[in-house]
């Protein structure tokens, strides 16, 4: 049995995993990154529009700060987020942009003087300040009060990932490519590493580590129509849940992005709308102002996606041989803007749709985009139930997105979480009591168990076809656990998935050739994926309210009285066919921003009994003026500084807010 020892084992080579490993390495701990693909090919690459950080450099961002970013994020989350974590995030995000700027990310910069932009379909001239010239620029994104999204044209994730991956190479951090974690090694209370399969040779080996971090991104491939890369199958989520100890939080919160090109499902950035693009229906009518007079195209993603589907259901969709869709119109932005700031969009339209977005409309329809749920962690990134297991980025639920993530907050979260969790994981490794004493027997047991599972699949004759099962699962999810959900549909999904799970236990493969065996990979993943799909469907069935991206047509109101709580799912036994659900309440009495109307979307909701009292209390503190400036006031409402690693504490300088 081959065993590789390290201090920190990072599963996932995207932005979160890389940044986390760099943090640990800089603190003197060895880190190894496992990645299904070369690190620079991770799905972080696909982030286009940008990352939110309240730098307030551009004129339209003036007055922005952590407080505004905090409120936007919490409202976006439909109050599902952990507000302390949101605070940690918004305070670190500007630091992340500045660190990346020093590391070489070619952020688009502010140019002083007049420039023409499109706002609400009108050409408007904006004057940028002289003193902002050359600082990192921001663009508009959905669900935000200020222009806050820092960007590199429309290849932000690409530029960030390139810089961070190269930084990891500079720090001599090994990335073990084409390696897949099959299971976490643990003793019921402490995580000790992972059983790993080499996707090139098929070898199964063990990695033993003081700390193990899951940074495997999302689970979009549980759906048929998704913007996610083909590697985003949620295996990181699944292996955490399969420990029976670690929990997944809010898996039913699944985001659908309004503008995936139709029918290929490839993303075109929210920056299209942020920069002034419009949504139009079959008759060329701009319909979003009819539904959302305040934010129009730039309401949060869950709201825009729902409005689009609603509009199609009313018969306003453009018809095509693949079904109905709507149009994204960016022609009004002009050729120069598209060729400079939306190059990737142009490429995608050109290669996949055969249209020129300078002149033509883009066929779009919402598609699965983001997994708000993930491995439940404390604000340190560590699982509260399985010591030594950390998670960061999309795979984690520490929980800054609640039930809907704002555009630009995910790519920001990856590096911010990497920075924060990297420090905490180093703290963890620093402690002598956390030195991993390796119970060889346990490691052996886990490796043998995984090998036996693989052998069983390889040796099964006439088993179920794994790719057919996977396809059925994806269709079930897309049909029944989508943007609009109802009890009967969700029940049908749960029933169907349970049947599929039973069949998936019987999968076989036709080829037992050594080396890369793509069919075997599908075969052992599909069972994990169905468990994860069940967690989403069952969580959605049980949650009888609508919150953020989780919309129940049969329970259309947000119900804080009963559902201001986080779903926690665990998978107790190997033979279980449903996850075990528990709920963790969110306490309005500790919130800086008690639940209310988001500023867009539905206005009616059922209040939590403690909300009015907290709201009154906050008003009193604000009115008294005793607190002082905004920083002191914030501290009086909900202190969070102590939660951050010392190196990441402190205010952020702005042109209008010198230190």
């Amino acid at each position, binding site marked *: 049995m081959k065993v590789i020892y390290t201090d920190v084992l990072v599963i996932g080579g995207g932005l979160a995993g890389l940044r986390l490993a760099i943090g640990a390495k800089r603190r003197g701990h060895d880190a190894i990154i496992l990645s299904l693909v070369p690190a*620079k090919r991770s*799905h972080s690459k696909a982030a286009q529009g940008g990352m939110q950080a309240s730098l307030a450099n551009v004129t339209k961002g003036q007055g922005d700060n952590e407080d505004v970013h905090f409120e936007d994020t919490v409202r976006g989350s439909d109050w599902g987020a952990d507000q302390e974590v949101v605070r940690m995030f918004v305070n670190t995000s500007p630091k992340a942009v500045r660190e990346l700027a020093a590391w070489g990310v070619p952020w688009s910069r502010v*140019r002083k003087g007049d420039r023409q932009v499109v706002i609400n379909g009108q050409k408007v001239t904006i004057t940028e300040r002289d003193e902002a010239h*050359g600082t990192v620029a921001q663009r508009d994104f959905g669900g935000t009060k200020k222009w806050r999204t820092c960007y590199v044209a429309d290849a932000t994730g690409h530029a960030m990932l390139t810089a961070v991956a190269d930084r990891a190479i500079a720090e001599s951090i090994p990335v073990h490519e084409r390696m897949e974690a099959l299971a976490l090694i643990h003793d019921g209370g402490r995580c000790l590493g992972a059983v790993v399969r080499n996707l090139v040779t098929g070898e199964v080996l063990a990695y033993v580590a003081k700390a193990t971090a899951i940074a495997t991104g999302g689970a979009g491939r549980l759906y048929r129509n998704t913007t996610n890369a083909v590697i985003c199958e949620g295996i990181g989520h699944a292996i955490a849940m399969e420990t029976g100890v670690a929990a997944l939080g809010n898996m039913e919160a699944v985001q659908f992005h309004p503008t995936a090109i139709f029918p290929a499902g490839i*993303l075109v950035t929210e920056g299209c709308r942020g920069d002034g693009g419009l949504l139009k229906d079959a008759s060329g009518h701009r319909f979003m102002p009819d539904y959302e007079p305040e934010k129009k195209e730039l309401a949060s993603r869950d709201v825009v996606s729902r409005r689009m589907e609603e509009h199609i259901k009313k018969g306003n969709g453009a018809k095509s041989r693949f079904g109905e869709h709507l149009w994204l119109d960016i022609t009004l932005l002009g050729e120069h803007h598209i060729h400079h700031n939306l190059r990737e969009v142009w490429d995608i339209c050109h290669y996949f749709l055969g249209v020129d977005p300078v002149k033509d409309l883009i066929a779009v329809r919402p598609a699965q985009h983001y997994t708000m749920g993930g491995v439940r962690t404390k604000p340190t990134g560590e699982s509260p139930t399985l010591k030594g297991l950390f998670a960061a980025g999309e795979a984690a639920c520490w929980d800054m997105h609640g039930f809907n993530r704002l555009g630009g907050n995910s790519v920001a979260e990856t590096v911010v979480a990497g920075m924060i969790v990297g420090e905490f994981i180093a703290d963890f490794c620093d402690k002598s009591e956390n030195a991993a004493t390796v119970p060889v027997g346990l490691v052996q047991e886990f490796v043998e168990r995984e090998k036996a599972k693989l052998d069983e699949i390889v040796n099964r004759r006439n088993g179920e076809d794994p790719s057919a099962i996977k396809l059925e699962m994806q269709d079930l999810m897309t049909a029944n656990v989508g943007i609009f959900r109802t009890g009967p549909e969700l029940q049908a999904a749960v029933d169907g998935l349970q049947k599929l799970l039973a069949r998936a236990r019987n999968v076989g493969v036709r080829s037992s050739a050594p080396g890369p065996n*793509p069919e075997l990979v599908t075969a052992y993943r599909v069972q994990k994926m169905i468990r994860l799909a069940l967690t989403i469907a069952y969580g959605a069935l049980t949650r009888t309210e609508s919150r953020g991206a989780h919309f129940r047509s049969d329970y259309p109101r947000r119900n804080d009285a009963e559902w201001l709580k986080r779903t926690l799912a665990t998978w107790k036994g190997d033979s279980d066919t449903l996850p075990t659900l528990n709920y963790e309440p969110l306490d309005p009495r500790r919130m800086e921003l008690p639940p209310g109307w988001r500023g867009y979307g539905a206005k009616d909701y059922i209040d939590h009994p403690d909300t009015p009292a907290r709201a009154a209390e906050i008003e009193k503190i604000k009115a008294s003026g005793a607190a002082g400036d905004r920083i002191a006031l914030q501290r009086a409402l909900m202190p969070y500084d102590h939660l951050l690693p010392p190196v990441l504490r402190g205010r952020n300088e702005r042109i209008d807010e010198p230190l």
Partner: protein
Amino acid sequence: MAEVKAARTLTFKILRYNPRVPGDKPRLQSYQLEEADGMTLFIALNEIRDKQDASLAFDFVCRAGICGSCAMTIDGRPGLACRTLTKNLGAEITLAPLPVFELIADLSVDTGKWMRGMSERLQTWVHMKQEEIDLKRIEDRMDPDLAEEIFELDRCIECGCCVAGCGTARMREDFVGAVGLNKVARFRLDPRDKRTDDDYYELVGDDAGVFGCMSLLGCHDVCPKQLPLQTQIAFLRRKMVLQGTKG
């Protein structure tokens, strides 16, 4: 009136070889598939794998032309399979793995290892003046045009097409390829990187570096991101010759 044409039947000739199967020999295997509207090689290959041959190995990740995983030779030329529409190809399509890179199996090659080696060799990261960055302070300013110029070169997705399309790289294993030279040009342009031409000469001032390039421009012509490789390599050559003849 659009003419309704019968869907074509495409024949895929795919180079199959799994070096881990004892006795396996490289061979061309044919698959037939009915063409569908908007079909890309991503769709076609997955359909072949799902319905006809579960053992066929290939790599896709983003399937949107931005991650660089799916480069392969398509009818002899390197390109990104995910965004290649079958309607732009003939009825017989020949697919082979990228040369130069270590073969994993069939159409799957190990570009990651090669690229990591290149990065380590050329030190493709910003060499800062000091390690400590004051994260609280406003970032250093940069001219917007310069930022855009750097981004232009930073768009490289390390897909390996330029290397596979390069006559020099095909003949000489130690050649850094256009991907490496473009990276050096990118960092050279970046004022945040404190390296000088003297340092860069040490990295690419030989026949495995910029002087190995014979200006066949295969790289420039196959680059899926249309990077200005011709211009950048010429520029780097001038600078390195200047550096090398200075003294």
